[in-house]
């Protein structure tokens, strides 16, 4: 039996075997040394086996299994014990390959909790459970990925959840046919429809996940992924952060309004500048127009070309900043921001005002910590920019209409994306642009409206 198991594991060199013979008993121990803790095996399995004959009967963690489960358990870090080539037992001996809980790197917090999810499924579930210590918090699990066999957890509060939503999520999850599920992003892509706006939120903050669960949403935890998926997501959610609920209403309202302004600056500012300088000059007073045009005369390129150069260089800088090792990132920033920017202005490739416009627009995009909304901003900035270059304010308006129609047509698992504006829920408007105390849950998601 031992030989058969090793053979079916394709003679992998990290599969280790040991044989102990005692009182006519032949005990074979098989484990994967890269996934198992050898000291646990030595102290908790081999030594007790040698000392105590009754270990196999008394050990509470020992389970009898059949040969088909052997391979699964072996590669989950279990140790397989075969007695007289007849009975097979498994005992847990996993090694901890995960990093410890650390501070969130993407979604920072000023006053709120600092912990974030890690790559371990159980740790992530624990981080949520310790926030919601309630019997109604349900966890269902399934394995996805034909070859990777990754553990997926569906978490929800059963007293609040909309059963249709749960059914829909389960159905869509079952349809996923991937060989490997390395991250929550794989599932996010497969669960979403082909719409441009994100229908699922991906977060690394357990406090946000627990808040969403209590709103009647579903969370999907993926083993080996440091993020958790929240279903469904509304457009307004991208303008809110978990930190909003730890600060006073006035400060939060101010920050939220700033975020909305930043969203429109990030998308529209370069386009508005182009429109007012090239097509619709009569809007601005002569002084302002002269100031802009005299600045533009420094550069010999067209405004559109300048914006394109600047935007593309900025995107390259941003991308390199993510990939570059930390030790050299400081020098890369200096090279990009100071030397390249200053040199480009001095050489007459770009005008200083254009540098200011693109910088302001790009910085406004960084207000959002969710990558999916940053991508949307980037895409629409270019789209509206092209339209306004050719058609002026008319192009800008048409671009804006298309943006609004795309937001309107998006649905997240059948729920209107524009909640609470459409369907209009007056009481929930208190927690949108501004923050006011509200004790209501989202009526679209749950029938238990009062918190």
């Amino acid at each position: 039996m031992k030989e058969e198991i090793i053979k079916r594991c394709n003679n992998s060199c990290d599969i280790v075997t040991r044989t102990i013979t005692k009182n006519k008993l032949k005990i074979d121990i098989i484990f994967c040394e890269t996934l198992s803790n050898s000291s646990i095996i030595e102290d908790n399995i081999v030594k007790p086996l040698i000392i105590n004959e009754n270990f196999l009967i008394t050990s509470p963690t020992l389970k009898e299994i059949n040969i088909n489960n052997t391979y699964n358990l072996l590669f989950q870090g279990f140790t397989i014990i075969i007695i007289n080539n007849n009975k097979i037992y498994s005992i847990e001996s996993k090694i901890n390959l995960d990093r410890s809980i650390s501070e969130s790197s993407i979604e920072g917090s000023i006053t709120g909790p600092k912990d974030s999810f890690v790559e371990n499924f159980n740790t992530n579930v624990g981080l949520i459970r310790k926030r919601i210590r309630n019997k109604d918090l349900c966890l269902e699990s399934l394995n996805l990925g034909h070859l990777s066999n990754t553990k997926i957890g569906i978490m929800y509060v059963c007293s609040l959840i909309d059963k249709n939503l749960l059914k829909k999520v389960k159905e869509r999850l079952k349809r996923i046919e991937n060989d490997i599920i390395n991250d929550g992003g794989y599932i996010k892509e497969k669960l979403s429809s082909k719409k441009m706006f994100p229908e699922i939120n991906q977060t690394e903050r357990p406090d946000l996940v627990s808040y969403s669960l209590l709103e009647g949403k579903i969370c999907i935890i993926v083993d080996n992924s440091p993020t958790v998926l929240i279903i469904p997501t509304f457009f307004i959610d991208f303008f809110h952060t978990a930190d909003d609920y730890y600060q006073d209403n006035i400060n939060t309202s101010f920050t939220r309004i700033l975020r909305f302004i930043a969203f429109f600056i990030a998308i529209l500012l370069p386009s508005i500048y182009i429109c007012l300088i090239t097509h619709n000059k009569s809007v601005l007073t002569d002084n302002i127009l002269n100031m802009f045009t005299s600045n533009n005369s420094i550069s010999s390129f067209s405004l559109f070309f300048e914006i394109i150069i600047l935007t593309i260089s900025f995107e390259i800088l941003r991308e390199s900043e993510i990939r570059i090792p930390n030790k050299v990132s400081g020098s890369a920033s200096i090279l990009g921001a100071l030397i390249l920017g200053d040199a480009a202005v001095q050489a007459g490739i770009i005008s200083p005002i254009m540098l200011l416009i693109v910088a302001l627009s790009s910085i406004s995009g960084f207000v959002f910590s969710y990558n999916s909304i940053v991508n949307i901003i980037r895409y629409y900035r270019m789209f509206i920019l092209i339209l306004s270059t050719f058609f002026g304010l008319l192009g800008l308006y048409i671009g804006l209409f298309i943006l609004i129609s795309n937001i309107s047509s998006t649905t997240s698992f059948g729920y209107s994306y524009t909640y609470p504006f459409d369907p209009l829920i007056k009481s929930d408007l208190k927690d949108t642009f501004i923050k006011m105390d509200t004790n209501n849950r989202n009526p679209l998601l749950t029938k238990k409206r009062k918190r």
Partner: protein
Amino acid sequence: MNKEKYNSLELSIILFILLNGIVLKRLNIYETVISILISLPIILFFIKKVNIHLNRFIIIIFSFLFMILSLINTCNIIEALLFKDKKIIIYILLLVASYLLSKKGLKTIVISSNLLFILYFIILIFIFISNINISNIIISNISINYLNIIYSLIYSLYILFLLLLIPKENIINQRKFKNHIKNVYIIFYIYLIIKSLLINDNILLMKDLNILNVFKSLKEIFVINYLIESYIQVSLYLFCIRIIIKKAN
């Protein structure tokens, strides 16, 4: 389509259409009162008959005509104020944007009109305030232009026609729907009276103002209201034509 969605559906379309009155010709207070008195019984008659299945052919023809009129009207304003190049570009841009919206269905048209309505309403208030002429309240001219009354009458019925474009299967609560229509007409007539008393421009746009020494004219910016109107209307017509043709097949 559930009930919540239906409620916002009718309201947004009705409100949108209501404020379309901004392009109305100038009426003095007597003309306004006469046109209201004539149109009221006709509207009340139609509200009772609002469920009657209208002839598809007539709806298609009228939808098409109104669409062309709306396009021509908006394109003329845009050409005068915003985009002085070839007119055909304005037609194409507006039609393409409206077609894309109409393809996404009635619910998307409604949500878009709801979101755009906030912007529309803010701009409308600005325009209204900038165009107020207090001296107009003192009525010196008592001559009545019957053409203006007919125009206003047609416009009142035109609102009803636009409401009929909503497919009947999307209207769940007929009573509520009729109540909304009645309320909208009340607001519409109040709006007409205030406008006839305070404003005497044919096409209303914000007057030249110097704002913070940065902007000297906001006409180009506030022309977006005409575009929003046309955008939503044309997409509604296109949606209606598409649905009727689909049903006929």
